[in-house]
């Protein structure tokens, strides 16, 4: 059995060796072509950035705008998540503690929970979550699979980071566009929340606004990379 396995292994190895030998000329040719193209590009591209191109450091005014923007989003998120915590606590305390207590002393308090607490919490969650896209962008907390970062040469890193920021910004701006279209159709059809009977478009508006805020930030990072936060040590 061992001898057969060894023979199969040896045969497989010889095939692999043979395959590698066959591919060698093609590999050499491809490497040569890539080097030639790189040389051609290097000759034609300007070797220095134009004078009007902004440096990595952002002007103080821009930095201030970004900070105020971030602080505003933080307050909205804190209000939203604080609201969820508060209303859910009061609802549970009302239903599980106050209600039974009042019934125990012989009173009939009716419903002791908070009306539509869960629906209101879900709305707050939507607002908090989509404002949070901007906060996560500003604090570098977005989950990003990093295993493919090494698939391009390390020397391309700074260029790739800027390109990535432009692409992310464009992509999120496009998502925001579709978000606005969605909110528009809700507004047109006067879509209302069950239980509360409120129009839902003001809540839905947080979706495109959140994406737009994040897109704006990525554009800022592409222009002034020094504004970009360092990614956290861990992401979960």
């Amino acid at each position: 059995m061992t001898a057969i396995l060894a023979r199969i292994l040896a045969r497989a190895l010889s095939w692999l060796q043979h395959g590698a030998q066959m591919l060698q000329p093609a590999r050499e040719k491809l490497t040569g072509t890539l080097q030639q193209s790189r040389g051609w590009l290097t000759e034609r591209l300007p070797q220095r950035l134009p004078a009007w191109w902004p440096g990595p450091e952002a002007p103080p005014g821009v930095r201030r705008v970004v900070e105020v923007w971030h602080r505003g989003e933080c307050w909205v998120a804190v209000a939203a998540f604080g609201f969820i915590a508060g209303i859910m606590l009061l609802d549970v305390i009302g239903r599980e503690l106050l209600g039974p207590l009042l019934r125990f002393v012989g009173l009939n308090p009716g419903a002791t929970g908070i009306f539509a607490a869960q629906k209101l919490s879900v709305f707050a969650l939507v607002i908090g979550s989509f404002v949070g896209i901007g906060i996560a962008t500003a604090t570098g907390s977005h989950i990003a699979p990093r295993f493919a970062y090494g698939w391009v040469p390390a020397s391309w890193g700074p260029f790739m980071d800027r390109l990535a920021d432009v692409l992310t910004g464009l992509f999120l701006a496009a998502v925001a566009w579709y978000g606005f279209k969605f909110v528009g159709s809700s507004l047109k059809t006067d879509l209302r929340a069950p239980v509360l009977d409120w129009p839902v478009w003001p809540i839905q508006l947080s979706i495109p606004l959140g994406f737009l805020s994040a897109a704006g930030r990525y554009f800022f990072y592409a222009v002034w990379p020094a504004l970009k936060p360092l990614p956290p040590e861990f992401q979960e």
Partner: protein
Amino acid sequence: MKAIGLIAVVLGSLVLRQPLLVVLLAVAGCVHAFWGRGNLEDIIEDMWVGLDKEVILSIPLFILCGAVMTRGSIAQRLIRILSAITKPLPGGMAVATILSCAVFAAISGSSIVTMLAIGTVMYPAMRQAGYDNKFSLGAIMSGGTLGIIIPPSIPMIIYGLVTETSVTDLFASGFGPGLLLTFVLSAYSIWFNRRMPTGRFDLGEFWIAFKEGIWAAMMPVILLGGIYSGYFTATEAAAVALAYSLVVEIFVHKELQAGDFYNVVLETSKLGGSLFPLIAVALSLNIILTEHRVPQSLVNFMQGYISSPLMFMVLVNLLLLIVGCLMTTGEAILVLAPLLAPLAESYGYNKVLFGLIMILNLEIGYLTPPVGLNLIVAMGAFKQSFGLLCRAAIPFIGIMLVCLVIVIWQPWIAMYLVTGKF
């Protein structure tokens, strides 16, 4: 051809360093454009519908609760009680570390929060008491992973959301494997430190620790008791846990000021901002995949090649162990659970059991390089080299693999509290 295009989009966006949010949105866009009606507004509508679920509210509440407890002294008080109890055992401090992680895991839903809350107190204490450095690090890192197995668990809630599985059942299924892991890790700690000196049980010391920590010790009792008795739903349990931790930290332990609450909520907002939009996109993707019967097609395709449920389980476990090395738990669940759960069901595995097995696999991923989050966080928190931490984790990974095999072999360990049957 369309499938190749989809793969190219995924690979291209990964090479172009796009966040997972963009990758998932791009995939959802491609699926709509290639196979659907091409109406991209539907993605936003599905995101809106996806977030409109009551159980999702438990995630920010548990994250808030974890943040409150990390700032307060609940962890230290639990450690003091358990250290007093385990003193007579060889390696008592190591056993106290594992038990503290297990008890803290019953309050917190996160691996990293558990590891940091216990580890920052126990690592220096263990080193001072002469415990082996590699062992101490391994015990703390592996103990931390109990945070996502012993309920409440944020990954379990995410799995429940994306696969439409009962979160209460998932929580119930985590209890048995959590106890098994706690027992086996504690037994290993005793065996490894069998030559360490032991102390005498001091009733006075225990009584003082108990008096100071009774409020902290009551928390898992209230939380788990409420969930398992059916008195609370997962969301209500999260609200109660938050209320309890706030009352205890502000009024009893007096460790939290009103001003700290802003920072606690801000931390939650940061985490929520990166997690909830992702969940919304994943749920939107899930809706379109289900509409186009992708999971069913995958089931038919797989059953053409693999007929044995055991073979399926072996392959899925290998896949999840590899994925656990490369992706974080949240990413892996959001991407893979909607596809793998229907497959597992078609091979006769209960969705709850499969979710638990998936999380057990991904729990090991917290200790495996290159994306082992507990390794990465421990590197900063305990100022140790990555290589040393990886070596320290090896025996514990082995133990966790054995426990995983035991749970697959004897599913009642997970399912007894769900079905009531052996």
